[in-house]
């Protein structure tokens, strides 16, 4: 059940997010729940009074970062989805994102892509810093640290799926991403470990 106070607190978080994330949310809803599903979600968003425009919103417009999580929470609640479905939403997002299309020139190799990862984060969010810590071109292992951003566990899960798909796009093989440290659990940063599936 959605708690209005929790949503309002999310709106107080500093930082912004690009509108592209709502476009990818809408694409996923349309695929999974159809036009009626998207209308149902829009109705709820409108009732709660949050300015998310899933249809006409521009990819590069900036919105309060709290809306990113509000969208995820309302989607999960409206369709009674599991956490795994939200992770899968993140996993699917890179395949439809306009920003990913703009950055395709970096999807040439594992090392090339990892070298632009921090900038990649900045293309989506004005808060938080994404860093590549460990990198091994031979094994294709990588560790990412996401710092200075503490939003919601659902967002962490969404990002886990998102990073997993991005990783697979550059290595060309099945891979896994796991969040091994989390700021919401008291760690100094979020840690995502990327590995090839054995």
């Amino acid at each position, binding site marked *: 059940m959605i708690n209005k106070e929790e949503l309002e607190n999310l709106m107080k978080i500093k930082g912004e997010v690009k509108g592209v994330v709502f476009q990818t949310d809408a694409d996923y809803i349309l*695929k999974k729940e159809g036009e009626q599903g998207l209308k149902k979600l829009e109705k709820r968003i409108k009732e709660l009074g949050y300015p998310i425009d899933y249809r006409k919103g*521009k*990819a*590069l417009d900036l919105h309060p970062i709290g809306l990113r999580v509000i969208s995820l929470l309302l989607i999960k609640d409206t369709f009674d989805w599991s956490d795994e479905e939200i992770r899968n939403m993140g996993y*699917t997002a*890179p*395949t*439809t994102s*306009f920003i990913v*299309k703009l950055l*395709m*020139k970096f*999807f*040439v*190799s594992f090392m090339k892509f990892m070298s632009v990862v921090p900038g990649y984060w900045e293309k989506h969010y004005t808060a938080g810093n994404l860093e590549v810590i460990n990198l091994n071109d031979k094994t294709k292992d990588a560790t990412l640290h996401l710092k200075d951003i503490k939003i919601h566990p659902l967002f962490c899960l969404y990002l886990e799926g998102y990073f997993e*798909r991005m990783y*697979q*796009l*550059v290595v*060309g093989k099945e891979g896994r991403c796991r969040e091994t440290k989390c700021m919401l659990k008291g760690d100094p940063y979020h840690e995502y470990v990327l590995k090839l599936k054995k």
Partner: protein
Amino acid sequence: MSLSSKNSKKKIKTEEEVQGLESYIRDFWQFLPLPVCYINPVNIILDVDEVFSYFSGYQPAEIIGEDLGKLFVNPKKVEEIKKEILEKEIISNRELVFLTKDKKEIPVSISAIQRKDEKGNFIGYFLSLADISESKKFQEKLEKEIEKKTADLKEKIGELERINKIMTGRELKMIELKEKIKQLEKQLKS
């Protein structure tokens, strides 16, 4: 006008241009009447248009991130084509057999063009497909008809040769008989 105000206006203008570009790219990919996809240097599909999705039977989210070889009956040929794109930058009309999600085999003609970054490095390629099943069927039908006509012709030639042989044999027999008649006539006269 202050410098920050100028910069702010410049930023707004750039954002408007990028948004215009976004809308243009979306519209263009939706309009394209051919199955088109974008592939990275390690042969991973990074983008597909709607027609490609319809043609292959895969949703974009299912096929983006997969190896291009998965979509063809002979994945080795896909590697050869990639090498050719690297060498020639642009290729057209290479024939391959496409494999849809429901395992239907479709003969296709492939065209592709290389993409480079600002430093001239190979960063991927666009690939388009044209369904040539109908022209293939027509070609096969034509080949079968030619084959049948050739067989008919061969049979007719054989028949003619047989008749010719009979006729030639008959004529030789006639000549032989005529010669015999002449000899008999000579014998009778003498």
